[in-house]
């Protein structure tokens, strides 16, 4: 029966969350991002924000969370992350659109919990950047403790990763030697090759799209025909052409950004976001004209040649040119202090408090087309909230509590209290294992008495 216990606990937990009482967060400074800032309360019911106001009558059965002196902001949305997956890069081929993060989501990656502790509630989990056209991406909510499928952001538009420049071409020729030498692993090994791969892939995708149209026409005419072979590599590209899948393109240099926008225009699809986009400030007008969003870093650059011509004003300049801009992490570490990153844009570029917060909340939500659900504190939106002890744009601020769908997923006090318990558990298990090993040691049993 001992081993049954976790299940019973799990069952009880699920049952209780179904009928969760409403929650009222009281006396907090509420940074709604889209509706200004106020001091007051938030009523959460059934996972949604039901009421926001300076004075709220708490329902009799409500659980009261006193947040006096604390700050509530929308849960942070990270438009570019690589946590919570068992693999990231299918770098063997120049078009790896057949693979997808959804297949390898790992809900037990500790980075999820650590990101929660930084106030992040939603993340776009991207394939790596080794290929001109990479794998499919998945938007998740950081519902720590749930199974993989339950993390997926219901109804969020699926995405796909593209990558330009050094990464996809280096994957083709890692030693950097003369092109044509035996050490070239795969095409492409140059920037122009990257463009060619994208063109070729979409030419192929159009033919594939046509083959299905032809088949469907035949069926409609009542002719006998075999359906075309389903091609998992081309299906996502057809979805891109049909506007059913977002393109998130890793890029740095202005010339390549323009190249990609032109290729997309030519083939009739949209680039949803440019990722990293460190030279975006040079071509902000063109990016805005295409309608692409930009997801960049505050001040992280110079880690390779194409990432040198960067300035900390990038996010602000692109914002002023009318682009929807977000700041992303691309790193499990950076992910824990995106609020800090946002604050830097106030010093470099003079963004307002609300504009700075938008870069990590409503803007990435817009980029992922989930802004009807998350990204700001508004009535009717998901109760995804982060409570900080100080203003989140202060680098002394710490996260106290994080709610997703009205459920508490991180609680600083609980975390601190649990540490001793975990240490004790660990010691017990280590001691037990040592004892087991001692008993099982072959020498201990078999050695004849001397």
């Amino acid at each position, binding site marked *: 029966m001992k081993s049954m216990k976790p299940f019973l606990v799990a069952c009880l937990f699920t049952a209780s969350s179904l009928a969760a009482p409403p929650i009222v967060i009281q006396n907090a400074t509420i940074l709604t991002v889209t509706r200004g800032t106020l001091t007051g309360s938030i009523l959460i019911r059934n996972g949604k924000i039901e009421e926001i106001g300076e004075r709220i009558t708490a329902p009799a059965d409500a659980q009261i969370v006193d947040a006096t002196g604390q700050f509530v902001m929308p849960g942070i949305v990270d438009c570019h992350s690589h946590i919570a997956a068992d693999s990231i890069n299918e770098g*063997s081929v120049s078009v790896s659109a057949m693979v*997808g993060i959804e297949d390898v989501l790992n809900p037990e990656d500790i980075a999820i919990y650590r990101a929660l502790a930084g106030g992040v509630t939603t993340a776009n989990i991207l394939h790596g950047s*080794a290929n001109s056209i990479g794998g499919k991406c998945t938007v998740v909510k950081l519902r720590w403790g749930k199974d993989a499928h339950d993390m997926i952001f219901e109804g969020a538009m699926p995405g796909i990763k593209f990558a330009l420049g050094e990464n996809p071409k280096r994957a083709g020729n890692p030693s950097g030697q003369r092109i044509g030498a035996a050490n070239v692993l795969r095409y492409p090994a140059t920037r122009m090759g990257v463009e060619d791969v994208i063109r070729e892939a979409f030419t192929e995708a159009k033919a594939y799209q046509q083959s299905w149209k032809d088949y469907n026409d035949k069926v409609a005419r009542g002719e006998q025909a075999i359906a075309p072979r389903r091609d998992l*590599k081309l299906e996502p590209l057809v979805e891109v052409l049909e506007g059913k899948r977002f393109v998130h393109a890793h890029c740095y240099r202005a010339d390549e950004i323009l190249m990609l926008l032109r290729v997309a225009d030519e083939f009739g699809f949209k680039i949803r976001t440019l990722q990293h986009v460190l030279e975006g400030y040079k071509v902000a007008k063109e990016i805005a004209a295409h309608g692409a969003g930009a997801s960049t870093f505050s001040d992280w650059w110079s880690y390779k040649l194409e990432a040198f011509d960067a300035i900390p004003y990038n996010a602000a300049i692109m914002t002023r040119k009318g682009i929807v801009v977000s700041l992303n992490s691309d790193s499990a570490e950076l992910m824990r202090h995106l609020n800090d990153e946002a604050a830097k844009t106030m010093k470099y570029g003079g963004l307002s408090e609300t504009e700075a917060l938008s870069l990590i909340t409503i803007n990435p939500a817009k980029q992922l087309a989930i802004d009807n659900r998350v990204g700001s504190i508004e009535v009717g939106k998901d109760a995804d909230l982060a409570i900080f002890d100080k203003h989140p744009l202060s680098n002394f601020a710490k996260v106290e509590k994080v709610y997703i769908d009205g459920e508490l997923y991180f609680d600083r006090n609980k975390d601190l209290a649990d540490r001793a318990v975990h240490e004790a558990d660990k010691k017990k298990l280590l001691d037990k294992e040592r004892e087991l090993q001692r008993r099982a040691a072959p020498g201990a049993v078999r050695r004849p008495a001397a």
Partner: protein
Amino acid sequence: MKRLVVLLLVAASALPAQGPAAVAIHNARVVPVSGPVIARGTVVLRDGLIEAVGADVNIPADAWVIEGDGLTIYPGLIDALSTFGIPQPATPQANGAAAQQPAAPQITSPLATPGAVTAANPPARGPEDRPMTTSWVRAADLVKPTDRRLNSARAAGFTTAVTFPPRGIFAGQGAIVDLAGETPGQMIVADNAGEYVTLATSGGFGGGFPNSLMGTIAYVRQLYLDAEHYRIAKQFYAAHPRGTARPDYDRALEGVLDAPRVLLPATRRTDVDRMLRFADDLRLQAVLYGLPEGYRSADLLKKAGASVLVNLRWPEKGRDTDPDEPDTLQVLRVRDRAPSTPAVLAQNGVKFALYTGGLERRADLLREIKRALDEGLSPEDALRALTLSPAEIYGVADRLGSIEPGKIANLVVTKGDIFQTATEVKYVFVDGVKFEPVEEPAPANARPESAPPTPEPQGEKQ
């Protein structure tokens, strides 16, 4: 008749087998698994099959009688996922490359030796190159009665193994194999146990497609879609050969279509969830294997109505782990709780079979089984998971897995409870042929100086 001739041949040979037409084990405790224990009963074997079993069975006049006082008769044990019967290359002494592999990756084939997955000659450029695929290879074509491991497997009580080609993503098709025979053909009980799938990768950039777990999963999915398309195209072509382009013959797809079920690996709860969804998505008849985290996956398995094969080789701390890199609480918990998996599955009504994970020596197996028993698994459930349950999972319960008339005469006869260390395995019957287990060789890691001196062969003394 054929059987009889074979038996006579066996009898005439120098094997430890004797081959009368019929054998009756008399006055023994009989554990049929499919029914209640018979405290004092008789089992009659004839022509490789069980002829009769019960408390009041007449012993045929032509039967050799074995007095069963103090003996217990069990169905022969079945290793539900194995390479027994496929001769292994002489195990190379842990060479540098293999020894320095990082601690067991999350998902590898439990059958292949570490690092043994070899990519095809030129790196594959996509699913169309069918990387690491030998789906058409049949274990039935690979087994040999000369596999040196058959002796020790029988000595441990195993009479049957479900044997698979070990390497690749689509490694090939399993066979249900009896662990003795004069010819390879005699060993095969069924030649289509299922397709064995691992989630191997080409191992890094430069090795070709797929080099990541998600690449492998995408490949497996594409191959199943291709197989379905191929099946329809072949059907269509068969109906309309005139005016239809004929589909290209593809042995990889032939192999996949041949297999009645697929074995998919699942290590963590996350993998169980992932593979169940994957199988459901492709409507595969899937059996999951591995399951060290089965103890916390029972809800998922129960909901899916899945059957699983549990590796008896419980996860252990690596031998050469860095003392400065202590394991996480998560890892320690899994190592501690993994042996409770069979008990938890039994309590939740999930059908499971056990497999040896390459362990051959009876002492090693008993140690691993004891850990499961200590966690609350009943000996009855343990026995079932090594006999009737694997037979049911592989669809051969009509001929294997219990002591019932008409079934194959695979038995283990012990002096005491089969899961007790002190218990002696007296006889093992495979297809009705009696074996008396030979002394197990000393463990490979025993120090030579402490090994007992080899006794002189009996023959020379006489």
